[in-house]
């Protein structure tokens, strides 16, 4: 009881060392979100963008992202 209490009180450090690649991963995740929600032909060819748009259509509306 006392050991558990003191252990949590002096828990060495709650910080987690975040490696540099984690930020690249974060950027990739943000890009993926952009891709499924807002890619309207800026990076893809028009037919491919149209296809992606139609496939992700329902989720886009549900997520509240502006859509057509």
């Amino acid at each position, binding site marked *: 009881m006392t050991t558990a209490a003191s252990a949590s009180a002096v828990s060495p450090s709650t910080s987690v060392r975040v490696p540099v690649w984690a930020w690249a991963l974060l950027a990739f995740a943000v890009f993926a979100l952009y891709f499924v929600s807002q890619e309207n032909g800026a990076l893809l060819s028009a037919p491919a963008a149209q296809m992606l748009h139609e496939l992700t259509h*329902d989720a886009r*509306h549900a997520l509240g992202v502006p859509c057509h």
Partner: protein
Amino acid sequence: MGLSFGSVLRRGVLAGVSAGLAAAVVIWLVVEPVIRRALAVEDLRSVHGGQSASAGLPAHGGEEPLVSRSAQVVGGAVTAVLVGVAVGVIFAVVFARMRERLAGRGDFGRSMVLATIGFSAVSLLPALKIPSNPPAVGDPETVGRRTMLYAVVLLLGVAIALLVPVLDRRLAARGTVPSTRWAVDVVATVALVVLVLVLVPGSPDTVPADVPAALLWDFRLASLAQLATMWLTLGLVFGLLMERVVPPKRALEPVAA
């Protein structure tokens, strides 16, 4: 020795998958019925002699749809899971970086606090300014402007979520008592949110007259239900998984083969 980032990330991905699946279920059960009602409105437009084109109202696809309705429903569910994973990854990185600064009792509390901040800043605030719309609403001509406004509000939401804690730490450094700090934090948050809502222009669109108000309301509520489900599931599952991190037992370490 603290927690490794990899173990935090794994929990983020797992929580993200759960959140995406929960969101997909809500889309299927709650959002899709409303989308069907909206598509019925669009169908009526094309039945009435293609007047939609002249009136500038959105009518999907034309004669032959690129993707069938059933494929759109499945695609929507898959998209929801992908979005859940991406949000889970971002959540894990931010959580790892901010862990010692997040308020809350234990990792479960911290996870719920971060999920609440995430929902408020990047889902609720943009939804209040640029509300979601069902199919049959939304002028294709203005989608660029609406997207830009949506992104601006989202970024301002993130900025508020970053600014208020900075303000709080400044006040703490000056020796302000916690109750006063709390009051200043709340007032600052409310003031900044009101500023964003007042100063950023709203959607330039008008809702077409043939879209019932009840349909619009039901859709916006369904959309928020889906977003809230995603964030709530993410916070709950990530928090529960983090609580189950086995603390390294130093006594066992010297045992070597």
